[in-house]
């Protein structure tokens, strides 16, 4: 089984978000970048398929050269090879079309992604990619088993889970549950050394227009101070929630 894991390069979850150049650019100053957490769950599941079922695992990112440390980290975790499509990722449809080209050229059986990236939160690339390459698609996946070309999946739905049956080739967008938090791997020294020797291929992008473009950014309006209520005066809280906030 040939697996492709799509990796987004995103600000660490603890990052403070600021904008620069007249609020037209995300301010990367002092920001630590990581593998998108949703993608990391899927990458970890891919490692399981590699170890238990002999799958090969390639990771791919659409981004400029600054994203390479993130791909190297994925290699250090255990992916066999990496591909970087040399273009800034600023629009979901653009990224999906670039990835579709990689999928077509690589003859992958299973494409694993995260449900969404934690930077632009579009949540659209996996579904778009599946449609572009005409693969079966399951979103928000919290469990996947593969037996030959038969795939059994569990997807999170409102208030529960749904079990699906499908066949390869597939695109599957994962989230926590596809592996547990405790299954996530920190690259060890041997992995980091080996990652340096693994192939990282840079491919040039298809020339495509962006479907959407961010013109400017805003931060949420600053919050007013919290109203503190005495622990012995619950009636005051109920009064505020009823008469002021009007939520009960």
């Amino acid at each position, binding site marked *: 089984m040939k697996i492709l894991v799509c990796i987004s390069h995103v600000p660490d979850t*603890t990052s403070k978000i600021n904008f620069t150049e007249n609020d037209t650019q995300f301010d990367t100053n002092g920001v630590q970048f990581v593998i998108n957490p949703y993608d990391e769950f899927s990458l970890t599941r891919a490692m399981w398929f590699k170890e238990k079922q002999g799958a090969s695992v390639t990771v791919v990112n659409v981004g400029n050269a600054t994203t390479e440390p993130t791909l190297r980290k994925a290699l250090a975790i255990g992916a066999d090879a990496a591909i970087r499509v040399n273009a800034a990722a600023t629009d979901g449809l653009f990224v999906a079309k670039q990835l579709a080209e990689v999928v077509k050229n690589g003859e992958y059986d299973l494409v694993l992604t995260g449900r969404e990236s*934690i930077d632009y939160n579009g949540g659209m*690339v996996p579904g*778009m990619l599946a449609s572009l390459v005409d693969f079966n*698609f399951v979103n928000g996946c919290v469990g996947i088993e593969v037996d030959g070309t038969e795939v059994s999946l569990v997807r999170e739905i409102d208030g529960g889970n749904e079990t699906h*049956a499908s066949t390869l080739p597939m695109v599957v967008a994962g989230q*926590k549950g596809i592996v547990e938090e405790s299954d996530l791997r920190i690259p060890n020294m041997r992995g980091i050394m080996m990652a340096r020797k693994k192939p990282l291929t840079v491919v040039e992008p298809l020339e495509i227009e962006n479907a959407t473009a961010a013109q400017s950014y805003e931060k949420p309006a600053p919050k007013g101070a*919290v109203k503190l209520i005495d622990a012995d005066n619950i009636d005051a809280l109920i009064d505020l929630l009823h008469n002021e906030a009007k939520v009960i």
Partner: protein
Amino acid sequence: MSVLVFADSSEGKFKKSAFEVVSYGKKVAEQLGTTVAVITINASDVSELYTYGAEKVLTVSNEQLKTFNAKGYTSVLQQAATAENASIVVLDSSINVLHVAPMLAVAMNAGYASNVVALPSEVAPFTIKRKAFSNKGFSNTVMNTENKIIGVAKNSYGVHENPVSGTSESFDVSISESDFGVTSEKVEKASGKVTIADADSVVSAGRGLKGPENWGMIEELAEVLGAATACSKPVSDLGWRPHGEHVGQTGKPVASNLYIAIGISGAIQHLAGINASKVKVVINTDPEAPFFKAADYGIVGDAFEVVPALIEKLKAFKAA
């Protein structure tokens, strides 16, 4: 050119988000000087939609789509968009619709903006405001494509009455076998429980509760409020509560009217997932907990004393 809205239903019934997207779609149609049509799949009574501006409702009744199927739904929406000559499709942000939207974007060769929080600020160029950076920012995004899909963030635009004398007509669709490459085998759902996605209020608790055996009072508080229960990431990682209750940056997003956080310190990742909620209440023993900076109302106190007192007072309030 017109605007098409998908009013999603569950077991035949519309949720609040369906009325929200119809309200939104009607307004966008007014901005563009065009008409709005609403498509429904296996909904039992569509007349409620007229209250929110649905001038024309297309009803699809199809046995094969009794269970959600992403490709089948995509196909229905595409056929409806073609029939209505719609270049703008307005969708909600439920789990099923988020599954369909990107597939529809490819089918219609459309740009797709998700997490949209307001009406277009301009229609030429078509500019919308969407959430980004896990609720830590907004992006004003221009959509360049002729066809556009707008995913409205839950509880962001709101439900606005705009009564019209609408009409409904049945819409015939052709679903092909190839739409069923992914089949549904089993659905497991807690019955009778309010889900986090649909809840107007959410009661959430963290490690401050000390152990899973102490969740009885959280469930009771939720019941009194008609709220869903949720938890912080450490609590779900420790296995005290199921994954489905984990809210925060890598868990479920919350956009309820009321969010009560009990024994949750308010790590930046947690706040990112819940700060789309309108009113936030924090109960924590530690006055330095970061959640107090993000909350509207706070009580510094021991959850084991405050929560039972709150339950008792709320019961009295509800009874009055």
